[in-house]
């Protein structure tokens, strides 16, 4: 996998680079999915970050909570009714005490679902090679194209520099 990328000192120039690459993808005939952006921290307020916002993790967390609660209810009620053992003059399935278990299972469901949704949504774990650059740790943002078409390489480099790249590099994985 090869990549041609530029390093940008701030998010504004990175946004210009992303826009330029999107225009280039239709002109130079490569897929917009090949555009890669890597940064060492999240940036808010720019299209290239905010377009990735989604509310689906919240919905999944609620679903996980519901499933957790149902599991808790079934666990406490079904199991206690199957083998009735009476203690302390209490009823067999006291709502308040079972409610505590159900509450904890609701929370556990939300937590585990959030973790799983994050891993799936972020594509983790991903042990294939990742495109990275030491400059990212210094605060720069990497914007580039993975496997760019051979004949467009020079043109892409020009456009990356035009957007304000501090450096333009190629990498081979």
């Amino acid at each position, binding site marked *: 996998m090869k990549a041609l990328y530029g390093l940008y000192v701030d998010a504004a120039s990175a946004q210009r680079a992303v826009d330029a690459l999107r225009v280039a993808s239709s002109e130079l005939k490569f897929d917009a999915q090949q555009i890669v952006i890597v940064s060492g921290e999240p940036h808010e307020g720019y299209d290239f970050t905010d377009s990735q916002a989604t509310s689906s993790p919240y919905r999944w967390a609620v679903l996980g909570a519901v499933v957790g609660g149902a599991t808790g209810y079934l666990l406490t009620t079904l199991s206690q009714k199957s083998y009735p*053992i*009476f*203690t*302390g*003059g209490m009823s067999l399935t006291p709502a308040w005490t079972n409610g505590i278990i159900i509450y904890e299972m609701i929370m556990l469901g939300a937590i585990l679902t959030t973790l799983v949704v994050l891993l799936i949504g972020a594509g983790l774990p991903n042990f294939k090679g990742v495109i990275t650059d030491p400059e990212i740790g210094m605060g720069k943002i990497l914007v580039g194209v993975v496997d760019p078409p051979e004949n467009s390489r020079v043109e892409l480099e020009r456009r990356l520099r035009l957007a304000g790249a501090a450096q333009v590099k190629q990498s081979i994985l």
Partner: protein
Amino acid sequence: MEHKWGLVVDLDRCTGCEACVVACHAENNIPTAGEDQAARGRAKHWIRVERYWEGDFPNPRVRFQPVLCQQCDEAPCEPVCPTYASYHTPEGLNAQVYNRCIGTRFCANACPYNVRFFNFYNPQWETPLQLQLNPDVSVRSVGIMEKCTFCVQRIKAAEIQAEAEKRELKDGEFTTACAQSCASKALVFGDLNDAASEVARLANGNRGSKLLGELGTKPNVTYLERGSWQDANNG
């Protein structure tokens, strides 16, 4: 009708001789703690005779109160056991299942009567005392809670015998070790659901009260006592 086992303790008859304590030890394989352990507060007596002094010299009165597991209908020790080692049997006993006990000691803390005991060490009997162990009762190993069971081994043996002979249990056919050994007949054991039984007659009489009854534990042990100390003093 189902049996409901109960005990009556007649405080007016109790002389504090502690024969019940000894009999319970013998029947239920309870080891003696020894001087050192007893000094550290680990003596185990499933039934103990509490002694209280009332009044001052020259007329102090001593009061003996045998305290054992009250087999509460709404026992605070039952819901708190995480492994169901403490639960309520259909015959009204608070059962302790030794095999289920993992020794959290929560039940002992919840018991207001302090009648639950813990095996801090593996029990030992000096030879030849191990020869007198009761084969009908298990020996509890370290880490297990134990308490008075109303001699459940005797209850079960009598029930099995009665069923084999295809008849009902008769009142007075068997009794607990403590009641059996009481010289002044202060302890009476039997079926509270049997209206004709001695224990039902005494428990429903007008001298009866429950120990710490205000806590709402609904004990099945009834204490009989005739009035206050002042009445007794004045004749």
